C-alpha cells in the first residue's frame, strides 16, 4: 500500500479536462448523425418499403449483433486494405462514423417502437383530414413519438459519451488515451485512471440531470 499522490492528481485534472471537448464533440456529432439515420430507418421500418426493408433490417441486425470495438477495427484497420481511399479517414472521423452506425441501429428500434406506440386513432384522424403520409409523420406522429423515445435516446447518448473512449484504440489521443499515456509516463496508474473515471462520471451525472429536467418538461404538457 502506497500513499495516494493527490498532488499529481490535481496537476493531471486540468490536463485531462482539456480533452473533454474532443470527447463531447465526437459524441454530439455521432448522436446528431445517428439520430437522423435512425429516424429515417425507423420510418422505413414502419412503412416497410419493399427491398429497402431487407437492407435496413440487415443493417440493424449487423450493427446490433457485433461489438462496437469489432466494428471500429473492421472499419479503420480492415476496410482500408480493400478500399484504399479510406486511409484518408482519420481516427476521430472513423470513431464518429462507427458510433453513428452502431448507435443508429439501436435508436432506430426505439424510435420505431415509439412510433408504433402512438394511438391508432391519431393515424386515422390524420388521414381523415386528408394529410399525406409524409405530413402525418412530420406533424402528428413523430412529435408524439419523440416524447416517448426521448429518455431512451438520452440513455444512448450517455452510452455514446462513454464509448468514445474506444477511440484510443484507433490511435486518437482522447480522454482515455491521454490518461493511459500519462500513466505510462508517470507510472501512477491508479491516480491517472481515478481522475479519468471521475471526469466521465461527472459528465454523465450532468447529462442525467438534464435528462430528468427534460422528462419533467415533456410530461408537463401531458398532465391531465
Amino acid at each position: 500500500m502506497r500513499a495516494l499522490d493527490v498532488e499529481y492528481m490535481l496537476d493531471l485534472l486540468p490536463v485531462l479536462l482539456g480533452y473533454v471537448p474532443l470527447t463531447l464533440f465526437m459524441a454530439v456529432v455521432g448522436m446528431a448523425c445517428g439520430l437522423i439515420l435512425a429516424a429515417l430507418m425507423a420510418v422505413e421500418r414502419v412503412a416497410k418499403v419493399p427491398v429497402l426493408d431487407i437492407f435496413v433490417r440487415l443493417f440493424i441486425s449487423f450493427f446490433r449483433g457485433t461489438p462496437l470495438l469489432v466494428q471500429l477495427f473492421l472499419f479503420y484497420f480492415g476496410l482500408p486494405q480493400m478500399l484504399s481511399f479510406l486511409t484518408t479517414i482519420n481516427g476521430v472521423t472513423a470513431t464518429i462514423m462507427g458510433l453513428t452506425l452502431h448507435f443508429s441501429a439501436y435508436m432506430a428500434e426505439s424510435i420505431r417502437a415509439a412510433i408504433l406506440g402512438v394511438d391508432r386513432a391519431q393515424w386515422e384522424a390524420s388521414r381523415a383530414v386528408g394529410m399525406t403520409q409524409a405530413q402525418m409523420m412530420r406533424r402528428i406522429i413523430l412529435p408524439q413519438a419523440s416524447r416517448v423515445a426521448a429518455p431512451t435516446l438520452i440513455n444512448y447518448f450517455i452510452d455514446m459519451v462513454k464509448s468514445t473512449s474506444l477511440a484510443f484504440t484507433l490511435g486518437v489521443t482522447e480522454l482515455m488515451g491521454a490518461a493511459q499515456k500519462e500513466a505510462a509516463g508517470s507510472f501512477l496508474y491508479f491516480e491517472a485512471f481515478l481522475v479519468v473515471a471521475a471526469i466521465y462520471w461527472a459528465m454523465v451525472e450532468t447529462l442525467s440531470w438534464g435528462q430528468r429536467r427534460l422528462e419533467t418538461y415533456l410530461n408537463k404538457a401531458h398532465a391531465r
Partner: protein
Amino acid sequence: MKQLLATAALALTLTVPLGAAQAETWNVGMSGGYFPFTFVKLDELQGFEVDFINALAAETGNDANFVTMSFSGLIGALESGRIDTVANQITITPEREAKFAFSQPYVFDGAQVVVKKGNEATIQTTEDLSGKTVAVNLGSNFEELLNGLPNAGEIEIKTYESNIAQDTALGRVDAFVMDRVSSAQLIQESPLPLALAGKPFSQIRNALPFRDTDEGRALRDQIDAAITTLRENGTLAKISQKWFGSDITTAE
C-alpha cells in the same frame, strides 16, 4: 442513405493527413508510452525520439508533426501512408528490411530481461525463462526474439499494448523483455520495484523505417544525410546523454 453517409463523412473529416508530397511537414508516428524514448508527462510529449526527430527537422529545415497511436498500429499506419516514418525504437529485422527502406541505425542496444525486484537470481540466462510467463509489447521485435529462442516452446509469452513494466511489478508475469537502455532508465526513474536479470541476450540496431517507394526513399536519403551530420557534430551523443546518461547512438 448512401449519399447521407458520404455527406456525413465529408463533413466530419476534420483534418486529412498531409501526404509526403509536401515535404515540409513530416508525420512521425510514435506510441507516446515507451519511457524514455517517447512518453507523455502532463500533456507534454517528450523523450529521446522526440528530441532526435526535432533535431533532424531543425537540421533540414522541415517541420515534424508527431502522431501518437498504439504501438502495434504504427507499422500499418506507415504502410497506409497515415504517417511518413516511425520513431519508436524500431529494430532492423530482415522481415522489415524486405518491406521498408531504413535509415542508418541511430541506436545500438540489446534485449534485456527484467524481473520484479528480489527475483534477479532466478533468471540469469534466457534458458531460465523456461516455464516462466514473459511479457512483451505486441508487434515488437522482442516478441520475435523470444519466439526464436531454442526453448521458445517452454516460455509462455504474453503480449501487451503497453504497461508491461507495471504487470511485472504487480507479479502478474514473471518477467518482461525490452531493450537494455530503456530498462535501466525505467528502473532508475520509476517507482516500480524492478531489476535487470542477467546480461543483454541479443544485439539490436534501431533505425527509422520509410515506405519503399520513390518518395519514401527520397525522404530516407534526406534524413540519412542529416543523421550523419548530427552524429558528426555531437548532437546525437548530446541527446543520448540527456536521456540515458551514456551514448547509445554509436556502435561499440
